[in-house]
């Protein structure tokens, strides 16, 4: 494996947790700041606030994708997608719990969700390692990380649709109209797809992270479309930022492909090999 210039797991974990949480909290803080400032700037701040939730979600997607990469390298026996599914399964349970349980202390919601997800992930990882006996050394750590990333992805993108992460608000804007399923599934794809798409002996972390950014940005664009239904203008902004980010990351991903691939040709016959 290419050990040169790889981002360490801790670096990405910090990026995912802090980036994710800052993004999520900005959806709540910016409107408050806007109320204090007042005037036309306040309107702008309040309108763009939900987009930060989605940006936080992208940070968590990149972290989650790297965690999937580390654990799926060992070969899970059921393909890469299963781990993305379980991540979002845990994430959605933990996120709903965390946001609902805090009641009036809304501000604690995402952190409670993060902790709950980590605990559930740790327990599942422990069971997988010690009861099912999967013999994957990084299982417990990665399962914990993936579950936590899943929870941040769910809360981040949900708050981009609902405007903030207050539970009744999310229930009204994300659960009732079924957008939660889009967050759930497109978010799961965003986490599991990068490693799945780059699977192979010459897989590189840099390419994978750019792809993770691109899948996260696609999720942001889709969520932006959904947010047009609930928030109007804010949704359009989320959508546009998502598309621009997607374009940047997708371009970077292709640059890496051109560098890494054996050859990129317009067309041609199959090169001669021994077979």
């Amino acid at each position, binding site marked *: 494996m290419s050990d040169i210039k790889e981002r360490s797991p801790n670096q990405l974990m910090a990026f995912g947790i802090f980036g994710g949480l800052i993004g999520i909290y900005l959806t709540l803080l910016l409107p408050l700041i806007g109320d204090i400032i007042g005037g036309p700037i306040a309107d702008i701040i309040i309108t763009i606030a939900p987009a930060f939730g989605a940006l936080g979600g992208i940070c968590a997607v990149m972290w989650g994708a790297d965690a999937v990469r580390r654990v799926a390298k060992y070969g899970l026996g059921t393909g890469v997608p299963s781990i993305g599914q379980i991540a979002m399964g845990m994430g959605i349970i933990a996120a709903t719990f965390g946001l609902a349980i805090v009641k009036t202390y809304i501000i604690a919601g995402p952190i409670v969700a993060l902790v709950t997800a980590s605990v559930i992930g740790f327990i599942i990882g422990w069971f997988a390692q010690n009861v099912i006996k999967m013999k994957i050394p990084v299982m417990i750590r990665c399962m914990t990380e993936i579950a936590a990333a899943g929870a941040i992805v769910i809360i981040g993108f949900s708050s981009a649709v609902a405007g903030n992460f207050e539970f009744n608000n999310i229930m009204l804007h994300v659960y009732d109209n*079924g*957008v939660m399923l889009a967050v759930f599934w497109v978010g799961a794809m965003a986490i*599991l797809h990068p490693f799945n798409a780059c699977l*192979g002996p010459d897989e590189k972390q840099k390419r994978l992270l750019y792809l993770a950014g691109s899948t996260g940005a696609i999720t942001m664009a889709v969520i932006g479309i959904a947010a047009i239904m609930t928030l109007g203008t804010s949704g359009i902004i989320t959508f546009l930022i998502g598309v621009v980010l997607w374009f940047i990351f997708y371009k970077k991903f292709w640059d890496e492909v051109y560098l890494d*691939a*054996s050859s990129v040709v*317009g067309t041609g016959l199959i090169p001669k*090999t*021994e*077979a």
Partner: protein
Amino acid sequence: MVLDLTMSMAILALMGALATIAGCLEDLESDVGSQSNPNSQVQLAPQMGFLHRIYNKAVSGEPVSNGLSAVVAGTVTSVLLSQNYYSLTAIVIGAFVGAIILAIYATTSYAGRVASQARFKQPLYMDIMRYTTPTIMAHNFIMNFCLVAICYIQYEILGYPFTIPFLALIWGISAGAIGSSVGDVHYGGEREFQNREFGCGLNTALSGRIVRKAESGIRNSIDNVWFCAKFGGPVTGLALGLTVFFSSWPTTIWGYTWTAVGVGILIVLVFIILNRLLEISVRDAYGPYKEEKNEKEAKA
């Protein structure tokens, strides 16, 4: 909404027909891109020295990728419906957006997987990328349209408790699960190893040694879908159509009672018997591959 029996049967028939088309196109879409389980051979081929010109659409398993396109289509449709768009327009635009998203994922997986196989010298063919991706989109669009139409009927007319994106996700996953368990076998078991004798089974030693020559020229994914559309796709459609039809038919006729559940179980029993009859006829037709062991011992 309460409908009389004739009307509910008509709607059920319409749903069954839509599901049949959706199932068929779902399988063909996965064959165009070479996805799901048979793709493991396409992935393995360069390692065995068999470089190829087949798309490598590793957007995870079929259920997951179909769930993705269906849920995006369903979500966009609900957004448009909430803006008072005409329902048919909403479903068409939704299905188109779903197809675009899937196509983006498809391009990244083809490029990503080929780039990760650099050491086997597998080239990335841009012409394959350029004309296979729209074909994937076209197939996926029809599938999305049919599935979201089913969900629209179930939600708006039949009054299911789940919303359109939720139903779209479930039917998308289900269509994918059926597509990968039915139609893929035709692609993986027969088309990828068409140069072997029919009915010989596939020796594990042949893994990765896929056919790379087409009826004319070098085989690509469009040649594969041409073949699978003859049998694998339609049978997949049949499976999804039967699923949608029979899962609602008992309750439509007999109401929400134990009788309906009983009829459902009866249908399952009929399937078991049909499978058994098929098993007997196939065993007779192809015969045993090996001699009885006792005879071998007798010879020795």
